[in-house]
C-alpha cells in the first residue's frame, strides 16, 4: 500500500512537468499544424540558460523562470518571423517540409550549445537540491514539489489565457478553423507568431525545470520530445485537461513499471517510445476519442 501511494504521488509530481513540456508542443500544433521538432532543442536551451543564470548571477533556478519565460517567448516569435513562410499552416495536414526545417533548427541549436557550453555533463546544485520532505507518509524531494507547483502555475495561467481572454479565444478560433477565423477578422499570422512564442516559452520553462532535477548535455531533449509526442497523442491536442491526463498516464506507467516489474531502468525509455507507437497507430484521436467511442456505443 505504501508503495502504491508512493507510485501515485511520484507520478503526479512528474506529470506536472510532463504536461508543461507537452503543452508547448500542442499549442503550436493546434494553431499551425506543424510538428515542432525544435522543441527538444529549445528545452535543452532552457536548461542551459537557467544553468548560466545560476552560475553567473547565482540566480535561483525557480526565480530564473521569470527571466526564462519572456526570453523564450521572444525567441519563439523571432523563430516564427524567420521561418514563418515555410511553417505557416496550409490546409489541415502538417507538411513534411516544416518538420524537416524545424529539425534543422534543432540541430543548429544543439551545435550552438556544444560551442558555448561544451559537451560536458552539467547540473544545477542548489542548497535545497538534496532536501526532502514527507507528505502523507511518502518522502519526496523538495525540488520535485517546487517543479510541480511551478508547472501547475504555468498550466493554470495558460488555461486562463485560453479560456478567459480575447487572445485565447482567437488562438482557439485559429486552431479550430484557420480560414473561418480570418474571415471573422482574426489576424491569423499574428496569432500564429504568438502561439509559437507561447509554445517555445513553455519548452523553455520545461527545460529550466528539468535542469533542477537531473544532469544534462546538449544532446538532452530527444527522449523527452518523444515522451511529449506520446502525451499529446494520448491526451488529444484540444484541451489542457487532455494533455494533463496523457501526462499522468505516461508518468503512472513509467513509475509503475519501475516499482512493480523488473524491467531494467535502461529499458524504461523504450517503453514510452513503444507506447508512442501504439498510441499513434491504435488511438489516432487519443484517450478522449476512445472515451467518446465508448459513450456512443453505450448510448446506442
Amino acid at each position, binding site marked *: 500500500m505504501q508503495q502504491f501511494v508512493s507510485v501515485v504521488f511520484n507520478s503526479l509530481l512528474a506529470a506536472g512537468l510532463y504536461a508543461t513540456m507537452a503543452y508547448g508542443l500542442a499549442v503550436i500544433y493546434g494553431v499551425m499544424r506543424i510538428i515542432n521538432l525544435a522543441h527538444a532543442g529549445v528545452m535543452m536551451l532552457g536548461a542551459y540558460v537557467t544553468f548560466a543564470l545560476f552560475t553567473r548571477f547565482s540566480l535561483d533556478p525557480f526565480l530564473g523562470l521569470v527571466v526564462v519565460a519572456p526570453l523564450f517567448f521572444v525567441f519563439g516569435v523571432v523563430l516564427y518571423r524567420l521561418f514563418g513562410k515555410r511553417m505557416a499552416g496550409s490546409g489541415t495536414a502538417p507538411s513534411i517540409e516544416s518538420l524537416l526545417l524545424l529539425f534543422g*533548427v534543432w540541430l543548429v541549436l544543439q551545435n550552438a550549445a*556544444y560551442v558555448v557550453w561544451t559537451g560536458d555533463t552539467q547540473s544545477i546544485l542548489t542548497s535545497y537540491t538534496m532536501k526532502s520532505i514527507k507528505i502523507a507518509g511518502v518522502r519526496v524531494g523538495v525540488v520535485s514539489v517546487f517543479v510541480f507547483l511551478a508547472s501547475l502555475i504555468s498550466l493554470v495561467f495558460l488555461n486562463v489565457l485560453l479560456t478567459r481572454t480575447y487572445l485565447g479565444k482567437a488562438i482557439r478560433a485559429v486552431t479550430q478553423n484557420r480560414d473561418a477565423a480570418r474571415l471573422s477578422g482574426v489576424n491569423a499570422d499574428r496569432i500564429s507568431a504568438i502561439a509559437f512564442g507561447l509554445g517555445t516559452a513553455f519548452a523553455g520553462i520545461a527545460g529550466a525545470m528539468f535542469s533542477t532535477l537531473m544532469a544534462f548535455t546538449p544532446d538532452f531533449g530527444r527522449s523527452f520530445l518523444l515522451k511529449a509526442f506520446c502525451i499529446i497523442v494520448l491526451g488529444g491536442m484540444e484541451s489542457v485537461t487532455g494533455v494533463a491526463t496523457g501526462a499522468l498516464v505516461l508518468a503512472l506507467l513509467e513509475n509503475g513499471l519501475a516499482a512493480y516489474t523488473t524491467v531494467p531502468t535502461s529499458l524504461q525509455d523504450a517503453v514510452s517510445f513503444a507506447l508512442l507507437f501504439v498510441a499513434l497507430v491504435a488511438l489516432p484521436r487519443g484517450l478522449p476519442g476512445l472515451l467518446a467511442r465508448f459513450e456512443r456505443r453505450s448510448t446506442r
Partner: protein
Amino acid sequence: MKVFRSVLWTAPALFVLAAPSFLDRGTLNDLWSLAFAVTLASAWNLLGGFAGQVSLGYSAFLGIGAYTTVLLSLRGFDPFLTLPLGAIIAAIFSVAIGLPAFRLRGPYFTIATIGVGEAVRVCAASVSFTGGSSGIRMPAGSFDFNRNYLSMVILAILTVALAAYVKRSAFGRALAAIKQDIDAAEALGVNSTRFKLAAHALSAAVVAVAGSLYAINFQYIAPGSVFDFQLSLSIVLMPIIGGVGSVVGPVLGALIVSTLQIKLLSMPVLRDSFLFIYGGLLIFVMLYEPKGLVGIGRRLWALGAATFRSKGGIVDAA
C-alpha cells in the same frame, strides 16, 4: 543524349571498381565511405523519395544487419554468408513495423519511426547478448581490405541501378502516385499499403547489407555507432540535399555530405560544427529549394534553355 547519360553513369562506376590498382589505402578508405553513403542514401530514397514516406528510423535496419553479421560470425559462420540473412531479418522487421505504421500519414509516420529507431537502440544497449552499450567485436580472422572495398562498391553500384530500375518500373510509378496523392492512387486501384511495405522492405534489406559490410570493415560495432540517431539523420540528409525522388539526387547528396565529413571535419576548427552544417543545409534546402540540388540544376537548365531560345528567336526575326 542517351549515350552521354550512360557514359556519365558507367565511367565513375568503372573508376571506383578499378581504383584499388592505382590508389593508396587512405583514398580507398574515403571511397569506401563514399560508397557506403551512396548505398544508404539511394536505399532510403526508395521509400522516402519515390513514395514520399520520410522515415527517421533507418539506423534500426543498419544495426540489424551489423549485429546479425557479428553475432553469427562469432558462432563460426563466414561473415559474407551472413549478408542475406541480415537482409531478410531487416526486411521482416520492416514489414512488422510498416504494417501498423503505414496507417499513419506524413509527419505522423515520421514521428512513429523516430520512436521505433530509438526503441531499437535502447533495447540493443540493454540486452546482454548484444554486448550491451559497450558493443561487440568481430572474431579475429582474415581481414582483407580489398575484398571489403570491392563488396561495398559493388553494393553501391547495384543499389543505384536498382533505384534507376524501380523508378522506371510500374512499381516506381505506383510509388510516385502514392507520393503525389495517396487517395487518388487508392481510387485508381493502387494498393498503397502493399507498395509502401514492399519499398520499405527493399530499402531495409539494402541498408542491412550495408550494415553488415560496415561491421566486416570496422570489425567493431556498438549501439552508439550503428544505431546512432546521427546516422539516421545523415541517411535522410543526403537524399534531401541532393534531391529526393530522383536517382541522381541521393548520389550527389552522398558525395557532398561524405566529402564534407572527410575533408572539412578533419580540420579541428570545423570538427565541432558539423551539426551547424547539417542543420544549416537542411534549413537552407527547405526554405529555398525543397527539391535539393537536382531542383536547382533543373532551374538553371530551364533558365539556360529559355535564354538560348529567346536569342534564337531574335536571329530568326533578323
